[in-house]
């Protein structure tokens, strides 16, 4: 996804980084105190758009840096988009009790480096109602214009 890396300025972010970057990926990020498996929600609309940079000792998310030692656990949820692009959501549990949800293209290198516990975690989806509502509205608009 070179276009995405251009939009996110991933290469510039790597160059600006003082530490040696092993892997980089454009990502959407949600910081939360909530531990949930309902990882797909409309909250992704307002999520932060940053680059995830992985170094030997830390994860850099924009200006925020998290030591790998401060990570308790990483769960990974796998999805395939309507465009057939494979992507993942990482749920990173930190020692301070907070969580970071990171949505990005599937990157095996990052998964390996983070020693992900559950690679094939089955995701729970919590916006079925939104779906039905949107479908209903779209259908009504379609019938109006027909």
């Amino acid at each position, binding site marked *: 996804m070179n276009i995405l890396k251009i939009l996110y300025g991933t290469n510039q972010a790597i160059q600006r980084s003082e530490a040696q970057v092993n892997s980089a990926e454009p990502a959407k990020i949600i910081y939360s105190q909530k531990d949930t498996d309902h990882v797909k929600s409309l909250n992704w609309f307002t999520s932060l758009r940053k680059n995830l940079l992985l170094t030997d000792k830390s994860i850099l998310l924009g200006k925020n840096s998290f030591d790998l030692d401060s990570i308790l656990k990483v769960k990974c949820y796998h999805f395939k988009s309507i465009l057939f692009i494979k992507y993942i959501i990482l749920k990173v549990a930190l020692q301070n009790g907070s969580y970071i949800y990171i949505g990005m293209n599937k990157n095996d290198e990052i998964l390996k480096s983070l020693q992900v516990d559950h690679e094939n975690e089955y995701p729970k989806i919590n916006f079925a109602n939104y779906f039905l509502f949107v*479908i209903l509205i779209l259908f009504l608009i379609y019938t109006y214009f027909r």
Partner: protein
Amino acid sequence: MKKIQLYLLTITIALLMSNCTSENLQTESPSPIFELTLLKEKFPAEFNNLNLGSFKEIDKLLLTRNSEVIFDLSVQSYDIENPNGVYGYFLNSSSFTVLALVDVLNEKITIFDLINNSKTEFLREKDDKRNIQLFDKTHNRLISAEESGAAGASNSCDAGLMLCGVGCTLATIAIMATDGPLPIMDVVAAAYYVTCNAGCIVSYDNCIEI
């Protein structure tokens, strides 16, 4: 369950998008061959001066004189684009067939009644409220007229355009919600939103005032 929802969503979005396309196709109205034949027979000079480039459907033209409706030309009408600045409106109803030629350069409207074989000339003025003031040149009197069915058609137009925009927004939200965590979906959704709104503008180009 998720697959069914995705399927429904995809179908609905596809229907919406195809609706924009079919709307464009609908504007390709059939040529008013019968009226053209009548015009050629009864007013050969005017017919020969016309450049019948392309036809497209327009809103109705309502002509009134002192609140009295002269023509409620609401059934069907066609606009003849003419590079000479003369625009033609074919106006049909069950009781009469009228051709109105609007000469933009000379601010003149000529109305041909193709059934009764009459021809009336009006001078044309247009005010800020999109009303046409017609001056009956033949009888030397001013006639007020309203274009495009006035406010009703305009409101309907605005509502249609607005709903089309709302549809685009909702469909964009649906696209983003489907794969919200995937960064590339921002680009996909933005591209869809721009394309969809462009489609709305094309479909409702008659509603947009410059």
